[in-house]
């Protein structure tokens, strides 16, 4: 099923999403990756205000390629999320409701998604040109010195996502492959032993 979702997210809409849902997201999202997260995290530790309102916010883990003259942004696909895991629970505690990235999250992040009622979206990695088409505006709002890692405010329209982690604590990165193996009756011996 394809669901249309708008940002900012509230807890109720975040909690209504389930792994495997295909979502078209519209509204404002913020970009941050490794270095940006470190700064956001430290600002929260020091009790400072962040460059954007975290309440209900969605963060997209991306370092876009440079925009060509006349375009809003260059290619803009997700980067691998686990590198942000150590900073994420604190952001969720302070109101972050959605994250867009790729790859599995650790147990602490999954627990915080469940506790605070948030959602983890997967975007198709390496589909940077396709995703850029759905970004209608981009401006740097902080950390300009970080170059591609600067904090950007994006406007997205029907940004195509798949719910990979939901507020029930479920994880499509575990259940998706399991379901495939169950449907095709593949047992552990046929793929070289136990997963995990």
């Amino acid at each position: 099923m394809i669901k249309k979702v708008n940002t900012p997210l509230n807890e109720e809409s975040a909690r209504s999403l389930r792994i495997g849902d295909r979502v078209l997201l519209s509204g404002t999202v913020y970009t941050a990756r490794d270095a940006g997260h470190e700064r956001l995290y430290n600002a929260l530790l020091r009790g400072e205000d962040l460059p954007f309102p975290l309440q209900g916010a969605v963060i997209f883990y991306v370092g876009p390629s440079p925009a060509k003259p006349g375009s809003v942004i260059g290619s803009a696909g997700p980067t691998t999320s686990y590198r942000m895991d150590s900073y994420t629970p604190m952001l969720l505690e302070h109101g972050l409701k959605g994250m867009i990235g790729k790859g599995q999250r650790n147990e602490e992040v999954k627990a915080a998604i469940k506790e605070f009622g948030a959602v983890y979206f997967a975007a198709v990695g390496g589909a940077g040109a396709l995703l850029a088409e759905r970004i209608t505006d981009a401006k740097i709002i902080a950390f300009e010195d970080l170059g591609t890692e600067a904090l950007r405010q994006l406007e997205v329209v029907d940004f195509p996502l798949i719910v990979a982690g939901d507020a029930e604590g479920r994880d499509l990165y575990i259940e998706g492959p399991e379901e495939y193996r169950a449907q095709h009756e593949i047992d552990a011996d046929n793929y070289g032993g136990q997963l995990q």
Partner: protein
Amino acid sequence: MREFDVQLLTDAVRRMAAQSNQILSPDVYAGLVRARESEDGLTAQSILDDILRNADLAAGKAMPICQDTGMALVFLQVGRDIHFQGDPYEAIQEGVRQAYEENYLRKSIVKDPLRRINTGDNTPAMIYTELIAGNQVKVSFAAKGFGSENMSQLAMLKPADGVEGVKRFILKAAREAGPNACPPIVIGVGIGGNFDKSALLAKQALMRPLDVRNCDPFYAALEDELLEQVNNSGIGPMGLGGRTSALAVSIEVLPTHIAGLPVAVNINCHATRHAEEVL
């Protein structure tokens, strides 16, 4: 002796860096189309559709396929009868510099691994040189993303581990790469040589077109078997479940020492960007 103007190298690298980042090579595109046909799940199908649409769009708009336009790798095979006029290495770096600037490719290289200041022009490219017969220069270019590079592994196995140990290690690496390397992945394997040569072999294996198997039937069969097993994991496109976890397993081997069995696994993503020219 052929006099070789290094400007030719700059131009070739500049062309290949732009082209490989914008146009998915036909072997990879065909592999993705076959993958799409083999999927029966909705999630996997929609992801592969998006990946193919993305490739079409990138080619049409001369945009990078992926925002991680990679670390530039150049494999140089130099004919012994070549005399370079100028510095071939600097010529290659200049080609990278020009391509990444002119085509709005992302500059992802830091000058120092710990102090991490961006070099600003995506140089230096990693250059590998080999001498061959003749008076031509073969240049292979790859833009290597690090989502997949980070998932690569190397092991110094014992000879007693044998082919079973090698298989286990390759499958473990593929599983641990899981969703992070943007599956469907391409798996380059180097077996033999020593510690560093096995890693180089694995990287060279990634330069091989996806539809070409190892010319030794023993290793070709091993490639097929491993591909089947990796795809039985169900990891699937982007790791969200499905048939196509990998597009290919390519193995390269070298003689090794009686006491050792080095195995290196270099992982590449579905945005496998490689190109080759003979000058």
